[in-house]
């Protein structure tokens, strides 16, 4: 019995280390980030000037005229994250609902057997390979064929268009997050009680309407949960985005119409990767850790939202 108690203690202690890890992460990242937040206040999140110039000033330890060395306005980065994440999630949501319906309702057996490994494959491809394809194949194509010289000239005075842009980043990001959404939504659709659908069919409703009105409505909590999960993944994607999003801290302007899609951005996570070499420079490091702190808080919020979204699923006996 003594050994049993010891085993319980040992295993429990190991589990508690995980808690300590999360606490340590929050404390150290916020501790390191604090100088950047305290010097800039809430305007840290606002806009003002070019982020890249500000980061370079920190790197060279030469403050911008009229500002302290800590001067940093992260809006272009936040905007880049927001644009890529929201657009990608919206695209992925539509695609994955259609794909999940197809898989569970319409696909013939052969198609189903093909799609199953295909979606697994899309989920398994490492982000650096997506990035490589994006930067070596898709971005040059967009640059050569989809962006006219007139369009490049129209915004040439603020930013150069070269094919690594919002559109490329969003489309690839959508491909990356679609598989998990399809998997989660399909799993939920498969658990909709057969009798509910048959009830609808017995009332003379055709299959499509039955899917929309009964199956998808029943699976709504799973769709919400899948969206939250996919958002978290899109938010944290760093490598692919740093390769194909244009790598410039530029707040792409939606008022530019179609040109907006061809403007470069740089989300938060990609900013960390691209400035990782400068982490030995104290002020720059504080700023980069501040960026990380924002990501950490967002991830925690999404984790919470995911937990909340999962609660109704337990009612239907879907494992969560």
């Amino acid at each position, binding site marked *: 019995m003594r050994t049993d108690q010891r085993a*319980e203690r040992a295993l429990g202690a190991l589990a508690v280390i995980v808690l300590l890890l999360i606490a340590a992460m929050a404390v150290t990242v916020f501790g390191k980030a604090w100088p950047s937040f305290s010097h800039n206040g809430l305007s840290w999140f606002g806009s003002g000037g070019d982020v890249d110039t500000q980061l370079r000033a920190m790197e060279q330890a030469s403050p911008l005229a009229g500002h302290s060395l800590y001067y940093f306005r992260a809006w272009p980065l936040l905007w880049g994250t927001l644009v890529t994440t929201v657009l990608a999630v919206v695209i992925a949501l539509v*695609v994955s609902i259609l794909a999940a319906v197809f898989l569970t309702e319409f696909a013939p057996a052969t198609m189903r057997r093909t*799609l*199953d490994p295909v979606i697994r494959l899309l989920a398994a491809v490492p982000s650096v*390979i997506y990035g490589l394809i994006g930067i*070596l194949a898709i971005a040059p194509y967009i640059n050569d064929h989809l962006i006219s010289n007139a369009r490049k000239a129209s915004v040439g005075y603020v930013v150069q268009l070269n094919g690594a842009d919002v559109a490329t980043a969003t489309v690839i990001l959508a491909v990356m997050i679609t598989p998990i959404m399809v*998997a989660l939504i399909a799993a939920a659709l498969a658990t909709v009680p057969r009798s509910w659908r048959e009830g609808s069919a017995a009332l003379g409703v055709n299959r499509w309407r039955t899917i929309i009105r009964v199956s998808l409505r029943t699976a709504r909590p799973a769709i919400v949960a899948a969206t939250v999960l996919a958002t978290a993944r899109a938010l944290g994607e760093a490598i692919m985005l740093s390769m194909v999003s244009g790598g410039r801290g530029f707040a792409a302007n939606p008022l530019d119409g179609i040109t907006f899609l061809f403007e470069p951005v740089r989300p938060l996570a990609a900013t960390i990767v691209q400035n*990782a070499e400068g982490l030995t420079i104290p002020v720059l490091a504080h700023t980069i850790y501040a960026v990380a702190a924002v990501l950490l808080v967002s991830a925690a919020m999404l984790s919470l939202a*995911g937990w909340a979204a999962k609660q109704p699923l337990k009612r239907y006996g879907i494992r969560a």
Partner: protein
Amino acid sequence: MATSQPPVGTLAPAGLAVVRPRRQSTASWPLIDRVGYWLCWATGIALCAIALGIVLFMLIKGISYLQPSLFVHSPSPSVRQSEAGGFFDPILGTFILTALGIAIAAPAGVAIAAWLSEYARPRALARAVESAIEMIGGVPSVVLAIFGLLVFSQGFLGFLSQRAANGAVYGRSFFGAGVIMAVLALPLIVGATREGLAQVPDHMREAAYALGKTRASCIRHVLLPAIRPSIASGVVLGMGRIVGDTAIVTILVGVTLQNEAVGNVPVIGTLRGTGSTLTSYVYTNSPAGEGNAPQKAYAAAFVLLMIVLLLNALVTRLTGANERTGGRRRLAGLRALARSAWTR
């Protein structure tokens, strides 16, 4: 209508005479419903096309730039691609990091899962640990990476990496990256193990207790052997995550393409040193990195993709073995993906 109805009594067993089409025809549907139906088909085909496109593209590029010599030569800094060497060091680096990460994450993950599923006392603590693991799964790997950099550049951890002349600790090493990789893989292993433990029927536990086994002995000698395929699939999923991760490598290991040992001790020296893995090699050689040698990047990416697909096939096999005993095999891969998605 009445004339077409057969007289009552001619239908012997009800339902036999009624021949229903296997699939309802869409011809009678309103236009908008039919558009939806065809959109579903289009999406399914498009996903297949994208996957096929990725695989074919990488296959063509990979085969055209891959040479056997790339596997045995170390990378060397050179402007010309023909003199830039191969990716022997990155492959070794991938191997080292995966081994290190799994060596830490597998025992820790299984132990935590066993505690969560079999003990979980006090209840509040168990709930907290559960959500902490879920939260770790949701933290972006870049954030994990720079957190790791912060931890491993503390003075007292200097023995894990290298010290500069002024006593500052560098913080970048295979050791540090391995530990952070373990954190990355942990939620997957915990998730898979708990999944397995939940499926073990209670009578196995009861039989063990009836024979006088303690809880700990029951876990060690009855439960863990019974769920070996689940643990294995968790480990392979974790390996896939580690092999495919780039952010942690570029921040915590990969400043140099060659593996540079610290000190003279053979293995420890390499682990304390910096280097690269296949992912960071691809990243550095892409136009986004400093190397800009696309041919090398394609070749390495092809090797990386093959490794990942191999691991993926392994997971399918392992979970497939699980599913078969459960009796249902429909969309096995997707269901495995859905389960692992929750525990990322």
